[in-house]
């Protein structure tokens, strides 16, 4: 159990989209060899993407990664245990809001970024035209998790260093280095785009009810799937297949 806990990141997928969809939606295949015997299977596609606050399945992401454009590589420091979750109270260590505390609203693991609510913001002018000056909106800039923020100890509400430790029950927790108190992972981390808590999910027309999903209808039986279905449908196969060779 410890090994699985150690390997699994505690960060929940907020978008609740399948990984396959995210991969598919950002894919840019320029050329692919025909699937014939005289071709080696080769694909020419975009390998490096510039990840920003625009999520990979959005149109803005595609606009920033237009086909045949190249941008400088961004260095990403490897982070083993992701430690900043949505709803965490953090202290900002850089910028004009240095020393202030805020709540993490968004996590962007591709760049080791978090966005803290109402901190580290700047104004952006949107929709400016020849006749129209545009609208000014306030937007938060992302903060780097390794250098720009640190967690806040819940006992005294001061910024602190922390480390991952195991409790007696084998649960992996974040522990404040100063006070030794556990910094719990906030409930907001479990929220997704579709529901706040799993219980609050509104059942849709095509969803299978949870009770039906959990129902055990499997009866072990000495037959293959096909044999079972044939028996179910009353199909009787009397013929014996001719001798054949597999090679």
């Amino acid at each position: 159990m410890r090994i699985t806990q150690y390997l699994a990141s505690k960060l929940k997928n907020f978008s609740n989209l399948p990984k396959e969809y995210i991969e598919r939606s950002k894919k840019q295949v320029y050329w692919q060899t025909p699937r014939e015997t005289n071709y080696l299977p080769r694909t020419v596609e975009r390998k490096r993407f510039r990840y920003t606050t625009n999520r990979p399945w959005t149109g803005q992401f595609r606009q920033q990664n237009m086909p045949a454009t190249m941008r400088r590589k961004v260095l990403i420091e490897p982070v083993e245990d992701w430690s900043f979750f949505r709803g965490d109270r953090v202290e900002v260590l850089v910028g004009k809001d240095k020393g202030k505390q805020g709540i993490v609203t968004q996590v962007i693991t591709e760049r080791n970024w978090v966005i803290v609510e109402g901190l580290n913001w700047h104004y952006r002018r949107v929709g400016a035209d020849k006749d129209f000056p545009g609208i000014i909106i306030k937007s938060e800039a992302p903060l780097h998790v390794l250098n720009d923020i640190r967690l806040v100890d819940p006992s005294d509400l001061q910024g602190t260093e922390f480390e991952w430790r195991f409790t007696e029950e084998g649960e992996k927790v974040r522990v404040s280095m100063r006070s030794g108190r556990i910094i719990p992972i906030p409930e907001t981390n479990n929220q997704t785009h579709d529901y706040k808590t799993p219980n609050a999910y509104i059942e849709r027309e095509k969803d299978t009810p949870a009770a039906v999903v959990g129902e055990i209808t499997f009866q072990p039986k000495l037959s293959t799937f096909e044999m079972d279905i044939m028996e179910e449908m009353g199909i009787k196969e009397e013929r014996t297949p001719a001798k054949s060779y597999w090679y």
Partner: protein
Amino acid sequence: MSATLIKCLNLAKTVRTSTIKSLLTAPKQQWQTLCAAALQTPHAQMVHTSPMRHGLMEFFDDPKHWSENDVKVGRAWRTEELRIKSNKELHQLWFVLLKERNMLLTMEHECNDKMEIFPSPERVDKVKISMDNLEKVVRERNTAYHLLETGETGERPQKRVNNSFGLQFNYKSCEHVLPPFMNLKWIKSRNIGFGGRAVNRFLLKYREQLYNAKRKAKNRSRNEVMMILRRNPNFDLGVLRRKFPDVDIDKLRSADKARGHYVPKIGV
């Protein structure tokens, strides 16, 4: 009638027969459902009704979803949920999923055709994941049966063989009427073994390409480590060692490129 509809007509011939067959044999419990909803409160009562038939309009989504920006559905079926279901139910679910996939792909095509936004395209992937998982579970059951009865998996036999270019590929066996030594056509058609100057020269260059790719990947990770160390001199070396196992980190620490552009603190 649009081009899609005409295509659908052709598709319907194949799909409909199979779906109807499965529906007829199992009128008792029909799942009009596609996705397993995430943990919910127990449902009150399943209403058993025979599904509505709309003819070709079954290839299209409910008209109330046509103008929406997103159609919300639950997640895909997981393997552990499918493992507890009977063969009959898996068979029914397969056709429910197949119909849903046909519907989604038709809608996607039609939306593209009409320059509309196809709402929630991740539904296609959810159905695909469910179908893949279902197939995996059925295969597991069949393999278990065959291993128990015959000692073999019952899968199509495969082996790695070299083609005439000396490259390895997966040879999938076929079923033949004649045994191999009598099957002259097969003996003549197979290209086993390789040789000759041209093939050797090709292999030399091919292996050089593979070697270069490996070498470049190694250099790239080496450079990456140096850049990380240059920007963060106090970076956790354990993490780096685990992330880049084939890079000699201790040697790189003293490398010139790994040194930042600042005066080092001495005697602090």
